[in-house]
């Protein structure tokens, strides 16, 4: 179905524990008077890999941005790793240091080298000594397969390389949960694969992942669960095979037929 995933992914060893990583209950959010998220209920176990899809404007970005409080919710509860997100800054800092985020447009810091991009937060937030932070950064840059670019600036890298740096930058904070907001949507087709490979490798290590993406091949290969959103609500969720082969709701069917081009 998707040519970018070219190897069988063995998910059998990817243990999903009973421990709850993220608990969202009765969550609502408004932009002014626009009710953008309605009654969201969702539990994510540690080690789970969840793909969120849905038409543009359905609130996918808003939902995962609420999880690290880039957006504030107005009603209901979000608990991340046992810490409830309220306006308490201490809690927000705690959650943000445990949750990594990868953006559609990478958002690397253009005035810093790749290495500095990766060490900035560990040094200033985690107070890691510079030398150690650089070692960790090089470790993750090797993992995303671009250690040789460490001293270049983001502007000198291709889109795919930049996105892999962005992933490495998040990993340097040793997060327990990773959020991805359409990480491949701004990339040329030939670069999508290198980013997806990086994400698959991450999944194979048991990272808890929430991923907004339209890469259905990735969803089928890696996800334990696919969530379909429309008009600010969770319309349907299921494990990938059922979701793709046997969608229940009409909206899901319509969406799938559009995106898969049947």
């Amino acid at each position, binding site marked *: 179905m998707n040519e970018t995933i070219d190897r069988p992914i063995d998910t059998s060893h990817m243990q999903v524990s009973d421990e709850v990583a993220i608990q969202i209950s009765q969550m609502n959010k408004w932009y002014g008077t626009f009710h953008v998220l309605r009654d969201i209920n969702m539990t994510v176990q540690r080690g789970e890999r969840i793909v969120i899809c849905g038409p543009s404007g359905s609130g996918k970005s808003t939902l995962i941005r609420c999880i*690290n*409080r*880039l957006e504030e919710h107005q009603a209901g509860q979000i608990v991340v790793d046992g810490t409830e997100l309220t306006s308490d800054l201490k809690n927000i*800092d705690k959650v*943000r*240091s445990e*949750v*990594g*985020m990868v*953006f559609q*447009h990478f*958002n*690397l*810091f*253009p*005035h810093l080298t790749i290495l500095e991009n990766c060490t*900035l*937060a560990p040094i*200033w*937030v985690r107070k890691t000594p510079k030398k150690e932070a650089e070692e960790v950064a090089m470790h993750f840059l090797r993992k995303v397969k671009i250690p040789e670019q460490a001293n270049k*600036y983001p*502007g*000198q890298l291709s889109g795919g390389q930049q996105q892999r740096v962005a992933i490495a*930058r*998040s990993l340097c*904070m040793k997060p327990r949960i990773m959020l991805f907001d359409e990480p491949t949507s701004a990339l040329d087709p030939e670069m999508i694969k290198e980013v997806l490979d990086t994400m698959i490798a991450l999944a194979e290590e048991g990272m808890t992942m929430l991923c907004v993406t339209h890469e259905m091949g990735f969803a089928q290969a890696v996800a334990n669960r696919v969530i379909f959103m429309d008009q600010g609500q969770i319309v349907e969720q299921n494990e990938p095979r059922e979701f793709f082969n046997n969608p229940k709701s009409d909206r899901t069917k319509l969406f799938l037929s559009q995106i898969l081009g049947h």
Partner: protein
Amino acid sequence: MSELHAQTVPFVRDSMLPQELPPASQRGAVKWVRENLFSGPMNTILTVLSLLVVFLILQSSLPWWLNSVWNANSLAECRAAVQAMAGEGATGACWAVIRERWHQFMFGFYPRGLYWRPVLAFALLFVALAPVLFGDNARKRMILLACVAVALVLALIGVGTDLAHVSFAIVAMAAILAVSHLAPARLIWATLLFPAVGFFLLWGGSVWGPIGVLMGFGVLVAVYRLLLPMLGVVMGTALGFLAACVWWLMIQTHVTTVLHNLMPWGLEAIDSDQFGGFLLAFTIGVTAIAASLPLGILLALGRRSDMFLIKTLSVGFIEFIRGVPLITMLFTASLLLQYFLPPQTNFDLILRVIILVTLFASAYIAEVVRGGLAALPRGQYEAADALGLDYWKAQRHIIMPQALKISIPGIVSSFIGLFKDTTLVAFVGLLDPLKGVTAIVRADINWKGIYWEPYIFVGTIFFLICFGMSRYSMYLEKKLKTDHR
């Protein structure tokens, strides 16, 4: 190409063609002239007209420049020398006035025997700037410092300094060069201490005054360090600042008086009304530039703040200052400010002017920086947030480096404007180089009637300084360009 090739097979080149220059009309000066000066009828007419204007200007002013007189004691002597040299009715520049009065253009009425103090302070200014200007470029920094050292010694000898002070300056500069070479990071101390050292050199008085002020900063840091683990950054800074204010306002004078009685060290005190010329322009300009940048940044952040009160105050301040002419502010400095201060405080006029010029410049800097902040994509803030950086850390490491980089041209323009505006202090009776000193020189019976030469001299110096700032800003922009767009 390939089709052509296909038609002429088989083909083998037996001799390779050497590289050749383009035709004569397509290279070098001929090409440049054709493309840039005579590329069309309109362009040709403009070129001819411009050449005519340049010719007319040169024709009328060149003799004046060529007939310059350097040795004379009055304007009348100058004129006589020109007539003798170039015949009846000839005109000539009389630079003798600069030769005789240069010290007033430079130092105003600063005591002649003490010129080494402002000269040394000026040299130390560049030492203080070195880590800021060329912090990461050891070679450029060493070149700058070496040039400063040589220029300092020459200047000290030029202003007639006694041997003791010249040797002192040589030793000091040697020490600074050694520090810059061995422990470049330590050079930042020269920058931090410069305000106190510069003040002490310029105004003199007891050495314990500036040391007392510095001790206030020590109090600030000590209290901050003490409270940091318990109360956090913001409260720690606030209480530290409060403690420092208590020190400065209530304790310092007692301590420094005692110390001064024990160890009466110091330099001869110089009154503010003896300052003048470029010494005054630099004192006001440099202090105001150094102080207005941080203030402007804070105002820009305040203007973008979510907190209603801070935002309103910042906007109000910026718009008020930008709506009022600088001259009004200077009159405020000279007349009104005294009313708002407690009676008997004798607040130095230069200091008051510096404060208001700083406030004035900071409003403009704030707007320039705000433009830089607005140009940053939202994603930068979000990435910083997502990585867990708090507001101040994000500002310091992510936002400001980029926003300031974007704002460099605007900031330097503001600085250049500020520096030139220091001449406006003439309106409150201070002796600026352009109007103040020139007026004094022309009031002298010997130089009555001279006008071009002093203005050209002062103008040239202003131009050199402002041009230097502008070139440095271009260098900085090029150096900081990392986005490879």
